[in-house]
């Protein structure tokens, strides 16, 4: 890397400050800028792509992408696609700094659950009309990239949470998967009666993930995290219900606050020390390894959509998306790359190579995906998901919510007080859009 010039350093400093400010202030979206952005989103033709496309992605699902897009490179011989894979934990930091310095890639991967800070015409180009069929994707994943009806990202892979449980123990206990909140604790107790030490292996990080879980339960109870006017609505009876529901797993003895950390979660499940997980689909591919036996998962595990609260079985949507940066010098080839990656056939190839579940609904009909019966519950759930609030302060609020969840689960604070506390905190932060 060449030495940065003085101008470059100044630009980096100013840009980082500006981007940080934009991130903190909900990007300062103006109606004029949005309208202009929409007007500049020209359609992309079918001619072969040319030039170089620099792609940045987080390590993980993108590790295999270079191989997956081989047909794209073959059909577009004059294009060079250069991948830069960055460790997950540093990804957004590096991307933010690069964008601020004007040295970002042409195409970047984002996460629909935390991409709000980037959805701005000064950072990303609007998705050109007709590039993809927005109705082909799971709704909440597409919606996560929308600001004032302008789409900035195209979904790539999808995941959500569902119930993953020990089918053998459920059969022994003579119970079926719970379908409502009221069924949950009796189900866990039945699994315990069938030999499990705990019915539920609960996540006890007391962090952003616990906050997200409870946000999901609040939706199931009929609540909303933001009002239609865009202000926080966390001190609600629905949030109180959600906190109590989550705490009931611990107070009933179904789950232990001394459950294992993530390193032990799967060995515990395989050994029967826990019998249920509320988790994502990636776990399914890891249980055979934990059991050290091929076919263990198929013989011992079942999945089910999350039990419904008074407002149904809602989960959250997450995964990966793609955006083309405003500073890109090769937008034509960049969009052609994004279009290719979002094709159902490419998404099936990506699933076969890495297990990334398609964000395009029709790709789930491909035999490679369809022949996996344990994924059915995740497909059902993905059709009933919501996106987390697309505001700059959501991650801070969810992290704090995770800490409040701990106090209720351990009985040191009532659910009502915790809800009031999280509302006061969120209100003091704002949404970043004020």
């Amino acid at each position, binding site marked *: 890397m060449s030495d940065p010039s003085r101008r470059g350093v100044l630009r980096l400093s100013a840009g980082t*400050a500006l981007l*940080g*400010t934009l991130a*903190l*202030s909900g990007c*300062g979206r103006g109606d004029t800028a949005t309208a202009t952005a929409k007007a500049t989103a020209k359609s992309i033709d079918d001619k072969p792509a040319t030039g170089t496309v620099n792609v940045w992605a987080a390590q993980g699902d993108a590790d295999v992408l270079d191989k997956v897009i081989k047909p794209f490179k073959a059909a577009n011989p004059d294009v060079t696609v250069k991948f830069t894979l960055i460790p997950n934990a540093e990804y957004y930091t590096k991307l933010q700094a690069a964008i601020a310095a004007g040295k970002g890639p042409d195409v970047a991967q984002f996460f629909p659950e935390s991409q709000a800070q980037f959805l701005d015409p000064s950072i990303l180009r609007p998705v050109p009309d007709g590039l993809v069929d927005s109705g082909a994707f799971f709704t909440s994943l597409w919606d996560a990239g929308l600001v004032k009806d302008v789409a900035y990202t195209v979904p790539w892979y999808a995941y959500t949470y569902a119930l993953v449980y020990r089918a053998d123990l459920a059969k022994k206990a003579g119970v079926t998967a719970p379908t409502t909140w009221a069924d949950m604790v009796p189900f866990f107790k039945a699994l315990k009666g069938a030999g499990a030490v705990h019915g539920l292996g609960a996540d*006890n990080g*007391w*962090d952003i993930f616990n906050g997200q879980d409870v946000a999901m339960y609040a939706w199931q109870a009929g609540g909303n995290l933001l009002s239609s006017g865009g202000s926080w609505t966390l001190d609600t009876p629905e949030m109180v219900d959600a906190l109590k529901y989550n705490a009931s797993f611990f107070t009933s003895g179904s789950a232990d*606050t*001394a*459950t*294992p*950390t993530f*390193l*032990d979660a799967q*060995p*515990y499940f395989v050994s029967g020390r826990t019998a249920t997980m509320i988790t994502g689909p990636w776990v399914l591919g890891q249980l055979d390894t934990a059991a050290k036996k091929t076919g263990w998962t198929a013989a011992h595990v079942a999945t089910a959509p999350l039990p419904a609260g008074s407002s149904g079985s809602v989960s959250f949507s997450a995964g990966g998306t793609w955006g083309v940066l405003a500073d890109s010098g090769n937008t034509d080839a960049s969009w052609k790359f994004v279009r290719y990656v979002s094709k159902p056939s490419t998404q099936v190839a990506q699933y076969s190579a890495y297990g990334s579940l398609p964000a395009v609904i029709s790709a789930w009909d491909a035999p490679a995906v369809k022949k996996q019966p344990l994924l059915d519950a995740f497909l059902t759930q993905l059709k009933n998901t919501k996106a987390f609030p697309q505001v700059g*302060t959501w991650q*801070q609020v969810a992290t*704090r919510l995770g*800490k409040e969840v*701990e*106090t209720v689960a*351990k009985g*040191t604070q009532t659910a009502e007080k915790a809800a009031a506390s999280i509302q006061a*905190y969120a209100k*003091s*932060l*704002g949404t*970043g859009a*004020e």
Partner: protein
Amino acid sequence: MTTTLVPAARRRARNSRRTAVAWLFLAPFAVVFLLYTAIPTVAALGFSLTDLRGSDLRHPLAVDFTGLDNYLRLFQDPTFLRDILNTGVFVAVGVPLTMAIGFALAVALNSGIRRLRGVFRTVFFAPVVTNVVAVALIWQYAFNAGGTVNKALAHVGLAGPNWLDDPHLAMPVVILLGVWRNFGTAMVLFLAGLQAVPEDVYEAAALDGAGRWRQLRHITLPLLLPTTLMVSVLLTVFYLQVFDEPYLLTDGGPLGSTESVSLYTYHQFGSGQLGMSSAASFVMLLLVLLVSVVQFRLLRPRT
């Protein structure tokens, strides 16, 4: 006296040349100090007197001057008061424990096992130079519900708790990591102090019939007072600012039982409360200053 023979003008020229050279050597440090310590400290003092929040960075001129409001809010915040108490526990338990282990090992290395001193010094100093993130990950794994510690306890028929999830047990584990990381520094400093004590003093005392305990009490300890002062101040400042250990092991949990003032400052900053965060960091600075001055006064060798 030779200086009186040098003409005043030449002396002044030489002095100013020396001063310039001194400044030249000081310049790199001075620049770094100004940029990364002095200016941010002054800025933080300014921020602490305003209601600055993350979202205000867009309109810095619209920030209101709130005087001591942030400080008043801090001392009305039960979380902050709890964190001051937690930090006090870190200091009250961590400092004496680290010093005692460091001193005991230094005495042992200085007397009984001189031939293997190099080896032991390296072994005991290793935690000081080991990457704290890697160490914290290992400790986290060792102390979780199914971790190494509980597996060892299971061998003797004991069911171990989930150490880092219990508000009463997490703090001892976090302090233990701090002690483990720091006793090597204390040991090396005490060892240097012990080696500076002249042998003939001990020989004279031995001839007068003083046993090992009397030698330790009446020779070693008084002569080691300057070293003790330095070690205690260093460790107190470290434990007052303790951050890595609670951040990496527990992030201040469970239920805030291991959150230090530094971690409070960090969490406030992360949630965009820049004014409050600056005020908290200033309170910590004053606390460190106060404790250091008191220690210097109490432990200063009397001449």
